[in-house]
């Protein structure tokens, strides 16, 4: 178990700058998830920590030791790969013992550790099998066992569940969460799946274009996204965005106008922006309320999706092409073709400036 500290980490491949000035502190025993769209650098960042790629600039410490120049085996890290990458010619036991044997561990200790790991992961029955005789979930567990057997200070996971089918993925997700509680070791986990990120993480790191967009707990990221990117990335269905104008700012907040909505008084601090400035209003589907519109005002319902426990109502936007989504309880009486007005809950409205940064909520009215 150890902490990891990234200080102004940069990675350049040829002429592409993949990781840009990443600062990050991972505490002892924390479960940190790197999440972001493909190509955002999350896997590269993990590989930099593992030591599979060299760091171009910056300082990486594990515990209080700078490890930039250390090879992977001296960093005390274990890694689970997306494709498992088990050694096909070795049995499960040999797969898990390989690293220990290379580290010249005493024979009894090797046996002890492998058996202990196998017990934790319920692999005792499978120790004599070859990987090809295992199911996907079992291979996944062996891959974790191989990474754990050497008792690394940090466990790294590179999209470990993306090769599994949906139901097995949920099951393994639970197993990983329980494993973390049981071992208490520091884990860094890379995924592009925001559900995995939300359910597993103590701390989520959202990456975009090689930069850290926001670091925080799942609740923080969901309730107070720092940028429009995070707001759109976390949550499913995604947050609705509407173009808006600043009508005025005062001590308690600001007033906002958006096409199709009534004027809104919001708690955000807009004092740094000129009157009439273009902003983006963000509201999650579950925080929209619909009411029947009179005549031709409001928005037209273009689709209603019934999911059993809830209903998604899709609305034709006034500007842009992305449909607005409202999430409500099932059953519903809304029908395609009806016109509705929107009533956003001011407590849950987010405002983003032209650069995509969220406007902060004034302290007095901030959500506790």
């Amino acid at each position, binding site marked *: 178990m150890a902490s990891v500290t990234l200080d102004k980490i940069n990675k350049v491949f040829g002429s592409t700058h993949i990781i840009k000035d990443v600062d990050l502190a991972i505490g002892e025993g924390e479960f940190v998830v790197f999440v972001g769209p493909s190509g955002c650098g999350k896997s590269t960042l993990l590989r930099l920590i*593992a030591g*599979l790629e060299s760091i171009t600039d910056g300082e990486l410490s594990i515990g209080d030791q700078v490890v930039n120049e250390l*090879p*992977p*085996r001296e960093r005390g*890290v*274990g*890694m689970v*790969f*997306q*494709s498992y*990458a*088990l*050694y*096909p*010619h070795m049995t499960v036991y040999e797969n898990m013992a*390989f*690293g220990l044997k*290379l*580290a010249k561990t005493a024979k009894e200790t090797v046996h002890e550790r492998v058996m202990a790991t196998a017990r934790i992961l319920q692999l005792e029955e499978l120790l004599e099998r070859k990987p090809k005789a295992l199911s996907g979930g079992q291979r996944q567990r062996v891959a974790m066992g*191989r*990474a754990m057997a*050497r008792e690394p200070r940090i466990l790294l996971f590179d999209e470990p569940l993306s090769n599994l089918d949906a139901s097995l993925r949920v099951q393994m997700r639970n197993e990983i969460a329980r494993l973390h509680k049981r071992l208490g070791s520091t884990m860094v986990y890379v995924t592009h799946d925001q559900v995995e990120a939300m359910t597993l993480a103590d701390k989520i790191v959202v990456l975009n274009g090689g930069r850290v967009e926001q670091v925080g707990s799942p609740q923080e990221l969901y309730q107070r996204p720092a940028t429009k990117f995070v707001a759109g990335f976390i949550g499913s269905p995604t947050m609705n965005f509407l173009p808006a104008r600043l009508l005025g700012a005062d001590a308690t907040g600001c007033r906002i106008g958006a096409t199709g909505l009534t004027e809104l008084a919001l708690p955000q601090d807009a004092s740094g922006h000129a009157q009439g400035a273009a902003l983006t209003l963000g509201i999650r589907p579950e925080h929209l309320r619909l009411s029947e519109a009179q005549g031709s005002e409001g928005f037209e319902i273009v689709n209603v999706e019934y999911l059993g426990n809830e209903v998604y109502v899709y609305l034709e936007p006034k500007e842009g092409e992305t449909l607005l989504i409202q999430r409500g309880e099932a059953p519903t009486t809304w029908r395609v073709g009806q016109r509705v007005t929107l009533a956003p809950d001011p407590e849950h409205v987010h405002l983003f400036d032209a650069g995509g940064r969220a406007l902060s909520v004034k302290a007095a009215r901030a959500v506790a």
Partner: protein
Amino acid sequence: MTSRQLSKLAARAGFWLLVALIVVVAVFPFYYAIKTSFTPSGDLFRVELWPTRATLANYAQIFSQRSFLQAIFNSILVATSVVFIALLLGITASYALGRVRFRGRTSVLLIILGVSMFPQVAVLSGLFEVIRALNLYNNPGGLILSYTIFTLPFTVWVLTTFMRQLPLELEEAAIMDGATPWVTITKVFLPLMWPAMATTGLLAFIAAWNEFLFALTFTLTDSQRTVPVAIALLSGGSAYELPWAPIMAASVVVTVPLVVLVIIFQRRIVSGLTAGAVKG
């Protein structure tokens, strides 16, 4: 019987007739060599498909010659050394060429391929000087060196192709487990590359076993010769007699090991040669 059935039957018969013809054309020379090896010298020029007076005298004769036994021993020594060295160098080279990214990798591969295209005769005199300079003339070492030079390009190419197909994550997993490149090659890649190794190894063995030109040029005395040269230089009772029957007997003796090897490794050869064709 309808005419349709008849024509079907005829087509079938024609097909098998063709197969039989091809088999006869391909196999007959070998059959005749084997037949000749059992024929007494006196009957050599009587054309017959089956030896009327079969004898083992030709075999007894060649095995009674010490120089022939020595030649077999030399051939085994040279061919196995070539296989061993070529595989060792080939596997390490293929790791570098298939796995390590460095500037000029493609040029190196192309140069290797280009070198293998020269006919043996073109490099014969140059190689002769090299072998003289290294003091390996009339020594199995000279043959091992020259055969290795000609085998390596093929070995490296096949093994590199095969090495590239092994998943990258496998190597990274080994690195995470603390394996050095050498350990990764020997403990992780080698066990997975047996089909390719068997294929290239066997082909290298056959090439070294049958090679004639270098063997003739770089050896001088009977005690250093390999089998192909020894067979060619088998002498009969007089300078005017070519001892065909013993030559055939010797050829059969040296071909048998190859056939056995091929049969043992045939499944691996097929899986090794087609390894590059389809993913799997």
